[in-house]
């Protein structure tokens, strides 16, 4: 393709960073280069014969490129590659390892909502949605993507510091036999059994049970 002789050092650490399948290509600038380096990006579906250029990431000076739309089919796997340009010379194409959106994404904690009576707490959990570039698109919960998705729920009695841990598959939990007029703090985590994926724990949601009637 009539490319120049490429003597520029290569972009480094070219990799996908993915959260809820928002798949963004990241890299570090070539060693020893300051400002002025421009980049172009291409990607390929594994098993399909051609590299595809990403026009929105052509001649860019930032060191990331959002490829979420191009890699949204999580039944496929992908490669991406970056080339650097500076002062009329260029680097080699530097590739990622094979990217599998299903196993190589990170998952956000679930949303937690809590209500209480005098002696119980009700907890409703909502799994994050698969990232969508276009808000008009249909929402897909990660629950649909990962059939083995479960929730780990932690409930802490603020007074006694006693903590319970629950592991549930459905998204609601009622914790009975609690003390009236007592503060409890709830946080939850997503746990996918295969492939093994764990979110962090959500921030704590504290609530006080009603006083005795």
């Amino acid at each position, binding site marked *: 393709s009539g490319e120049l002789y490429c003597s520029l050092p290569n972009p480094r650490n070219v990799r996908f960073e993915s959260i809820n399948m928002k798949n963004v290509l990241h890299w570090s600038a070539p060693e020893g280069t300051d400002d002025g380096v421009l980049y172009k990006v291409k990607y*390929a579906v*594994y*098993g*399909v*014969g*051609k590299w595809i250029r990403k026009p929105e990431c052509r001649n860019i000076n930032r060191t990331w490129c959002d490829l979420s739309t191009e890699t949204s089919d999580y*039944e*496929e*796997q992908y*490669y991406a590659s970056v080339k650097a340009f500076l002062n009329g010379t260029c680097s080699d194409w530097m590739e990622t*390892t*094979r990217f*599998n959106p*299903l*196993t190589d994404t990170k998952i956000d904690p679930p949303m937690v909502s809590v209500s209480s009576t005098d002696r119980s707490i009700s907890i409703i959990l909502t799994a994050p949605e698969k990232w969508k570039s276009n808000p008009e698109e249909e929402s897909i919960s990660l629950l649909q993507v990962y*059939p*083995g998705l479960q929730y780990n729920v932690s409930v802490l009695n603020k007074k006694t510091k006693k903590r319970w841990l629950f592991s549930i598959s459905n998204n609601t939990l009622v914790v009975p036999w609690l003390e009236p007029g007592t503060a409890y703090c709830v946080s939850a985590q997503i746990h996918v*059994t*295969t*492939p*093994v994926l764990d979110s962090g724990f959500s921030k704590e949601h504290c609530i006080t049970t009603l006083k005795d009637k």
Partner: protein
Amino acid sequence: KTFHFGSCRVSMSLAEIRAGFTAIKANIQSRDPVRTLSILSHPHSLHKVKSSDRCCMTHQLFTFYVDKVFKHCRTEDSFVNRKISSIANSFLSARRKLGQCREQNNCVCGEESTEKFKQILANYEGLNVTSAAMKSLGELDILLDWMEKSR
């Protein structure tokens, strides 16, 4: 975990196989420089296999991995070799269970899945044995991802 392949129910621990593969995935895939060819996913995707054909396809794929893949995947790395043999043993036991389903005639091979499996073999034979075996091993997560949809 119990998996439903058509009318066949098989319990197996995919998590163990998955953990073994994850530990060697980068190593194995880095030995496969061919981006433009896939053994399992192109031109036919496993995800398009009809549920009634799942049992037969899974049994054929397990046989494919036992007979044509694991034995050709020796490396110079003893850690990787140990993981490969542990995965191979898990495949052997799973295939035995699937074989029992076949004997009970719960494992019918439809025309479509027979065609897809022929294509997989053609993809495999398009490379030399070691490259084809290493590529197939590097695609184990494609097989596991598909199987996990059968929970």
